[in-house]
C-alpha cells in the first residue's frame, strides 16, 4: 500500500503524459483483477465474466454522466448498476445451486451476450436519455470532474490520481473485508461448502453478497477505465478481455489480493512490449504464459514467492537454532570436562 502511494506520487513526475494515460487504463484493469481476486481467489466463485460488471460500470458511468452533465452521481450510478446486475445474476446462480463449471459458462455467456447486444446499437434510435450508444464504436465518456462542480474537469494526470486512489481504496477495502467474519466464512465456503452449510451458514447468501461486492468493485474499475481510455465500446465485453482477467488472477495467484493486481500490471506491460516488436504473436505468448503457469506455478507468482520466503526463513531459523545449540553444547562440554579435573 505504501508502495502504491509512493508510486502515485512519483509516477507523474517521471513519466510522460502518454504513459500516465496508459497507466490509468492499467490501474482500471488492476481494479478489475482485484475484484476477481476477491470473488474467485477468496470466494471460490469462478466468474469467467467479471468484465460484464466492469463494462456495465463503464457504460453506466458514461450514460449517466452524459445525462446528468456531471460525474459525481454518475460514479454512484455506475457502481450501483454493476452491483445490482451482479446481485441479480448471482441470485439465479447461487439460489439455483448452479455448479462451478456451469457458473463459469453462464458468466462468460452473459458477457458475450452483452458484447453482441451493444454492438448492434449503432442506429440513432438506440439512445438512453441524451446518450447515443453508438454500436461497436461505443460512446465518448465525459471526463471526471471535481465533485459537485461539473465545470472543473479533471486533467489526465488528475484522473491518474483518482484512479490510484480508487485502486488503493478498493484494495484496502477488500483486504479489510477478507479479514472480517464475513470474509472468513467466504473462505470457509470456498474450502468446503457442505461443512459450511452443516455448521449453519447459508452459503447461498454469503456467495451472493461476495459476488455483489465483487461486481461493485469491478464497476469502480469500469469508471476509471472509461476515463483512462476516454470512451467505452463493446470490446470491454469481448472474450479476449474476459479471458485476460482470468489469466491475471492465475498468474498473480489466487488467494491473494496483491497478486492479481501485479499480474494485471505485469502482463499489460508485457503485451504492450510485445506489441512493439513484430516477431511473435501477442496472444500466442499469453497462451504460453498461461500454460506454463498452470503447469509449473499453479498457485501463481505471489503465493509461490511467499512460500519460498517462508521456507528460506524457516531454514535460516533452524540453522541459527542449530548453531546456538551447538555453541551451548560446546560450552557445556568444556564445563563437564573441566569438572572432574577440578574434583579432588
Amino acid at each position, binding site marked *: 500500500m505504501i508502495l502504491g502511494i509512493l508510486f502515485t506520487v512519483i509516477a507523474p513526475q517521471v513519466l510522460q503524459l502518454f504513459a500516465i494515460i496508459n497507466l490509468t487504463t492499467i490501474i482500471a484493469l488492476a481494479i478489475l483483477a482485484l475484484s476477481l481476486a476477491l470473488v474467485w481467489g477468496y470466494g471460490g466463485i469462478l466468474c469467467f465474466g467479471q468484465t460484464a460488471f466492469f463494462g456495465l460500470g463503464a457504460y453506466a458511468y458514461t450514460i449517466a454522466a452524459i445525462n446528468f452533465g456531471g460525474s459525481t452521481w454518475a460514479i454512484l450510478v455506475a457502481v450501483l448498476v454493476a452491483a445490482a446486475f451482479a446481485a441479480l445474476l448471482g441470485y439465479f446462480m447461487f439460489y439455483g445451486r448452479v455448479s462451478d463449471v456451469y457458473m463459469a459458462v453462464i458468466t462468460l455467456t452473459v458477457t458475450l451476450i452483452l458484447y453482441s447486444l451493444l454492438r448492434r446499437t449503432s442506429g440513432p434510435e438506440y439512445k438512453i436519455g441524451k446518450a447515443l450508444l453508438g454500436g461497436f464504436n461505443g460512446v465518448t465518456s465525459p471526463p471526471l470532474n471535481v465533485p459537485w462542480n461539473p465545470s472543473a474537469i479533471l486533467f489526465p494526470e488528475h484522473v491518474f490520481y483518482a484512479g490510484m486512489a480508487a485502486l488503493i481504496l478498493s484494495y484496502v477495502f477488500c483486504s479489510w473485508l477478507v479479514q472480517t*467474519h464475513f470474509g*472468513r*466464512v467466504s*473462505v*470457509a465456503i*470456498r*474450502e*468446503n461448502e*457442505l*461443512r*459450511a*452449510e*452443516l*455448521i*449453519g*451458514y*447459508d*452459503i*447461498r447468501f454469503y456467495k451472493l453478497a461476495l459476488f455483489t461486492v465483487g461486481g461493485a468493485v469491478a464497476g469502480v474499475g469500469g469508471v476509471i477505465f472509461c476515463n483512462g481510455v476516454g470512451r467505452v465500446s463493446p470490446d470491454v465485453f469481448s472474450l479476449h478481455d474476459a479471458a485476460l482477467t482470468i489469466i491475471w488472477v492465475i498468474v498473480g495467484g489466487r488467494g491473494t489480493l496483491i497478486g492479481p493486481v501485479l499480474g494485471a500490471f505485469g502482463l499489460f506491460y508485457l503485451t504492450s512490449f510485445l506489441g512493439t516488436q513484430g516477431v511473435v504473436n501477442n496472444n500466442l505468448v499469453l497462451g504460453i504464459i498461461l500454460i506454463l503457469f498452470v503447469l509449473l506455478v499453479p498457485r501463481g507468482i505471489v503465493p509461490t514467492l511467499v512460500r519460498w520466503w517462508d521456507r528460506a526463513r524457516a531454514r535460516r531459523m533452524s540453522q541459527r537454532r542449530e548453531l546456538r545449540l551447538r555453541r551451548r553444547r560446546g560450552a557445556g562440554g568444556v564445563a563437564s570436562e573441566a569438572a572432574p579435573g577440578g574434583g579432588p
Partner: protein
Amino acid sequence: MRGEVVVEARNLSMHFGGVKAVDRVNFNLWENELRCLIGPNGAGKSTFFKCLTGQLTPTAGDVVIRDFTATGRQPHEVARLGVGIKTQVPNLFDGLTVEENVLLSARKWHAATRARALTAATLERLRIGDIRHHLAGRLAHGQRQWVELGMVVAAEPWLVLLDEPAAGMTHEETERTAELIREINQTATMIVVEHDMQFIRMISSKVTVFHEGRILIEDNMDVVSADPRVREVYLGHRRQ
C-alpha cells in the same frame, strides 16, 4: 424416563430410481437419548441420516425435529435449529487451520470473544490443542475425525447426529471417541450411525437395526445381538 419426542420420521422413503434406499420408515427419538443406527452396507442408514440432516430431500414422508418440519429444508436451516452434524467422510475446511475450523463453528452462535474461549476449551477437551495451527488438509484421518467432532461440539448443539465417528480410528482413538460421545450425551440428544459392534457396546445404548431400507428391530444391544434375524443379516443367510 421418557420425555418428549424430539426427532420423528413419519413414513420416510427415499428412492433412487428403482432402488428403495429407505422405505416407509417410522422412527422416534426421545429427548436425551443416545441412539445407534446399525445395519450392513447398503441397509439405508446413511441415506436415512442424510434425510434427517437436509442433505437429501426424501421421496415421501416427513422429518420433524421438535416442532419444525425439516423435510426438504436446506442443510443450514436444519443446522440452525441447534443440530450438530458429522458426516461419514470428514468434511473440513482443508485450507484453514484446525483452530479456524473450530472457531468458524463456534462463531456461528456466539460473539467473537465467547467464540474464541469456546474454541480454546473445545480444542483442550478433544486434546487437539497441539495441532491447532496445522492445516486441516494435512492431518491424518483419525485427527480429521476429531477436528470435525470438535466443530460439532463447539457449536453446543442440543441434538447431535454423527455418521460413523469411529471409522478408520485406532483402538485407543475409538475408546476415546466413545468416552467423548458419552460426555456429549450428558447435554445433548444423539444419533450415531455406526457399524462397528464393539464400538456400540462401548457406548451401550439403544440400537435401531436397518435392513434393506427398513427398520428390522429396535432394542438394547444385548437383545439385538441375540436376535437371530440380526445375525442372519450380518452373517449371511443361514435359515434352512
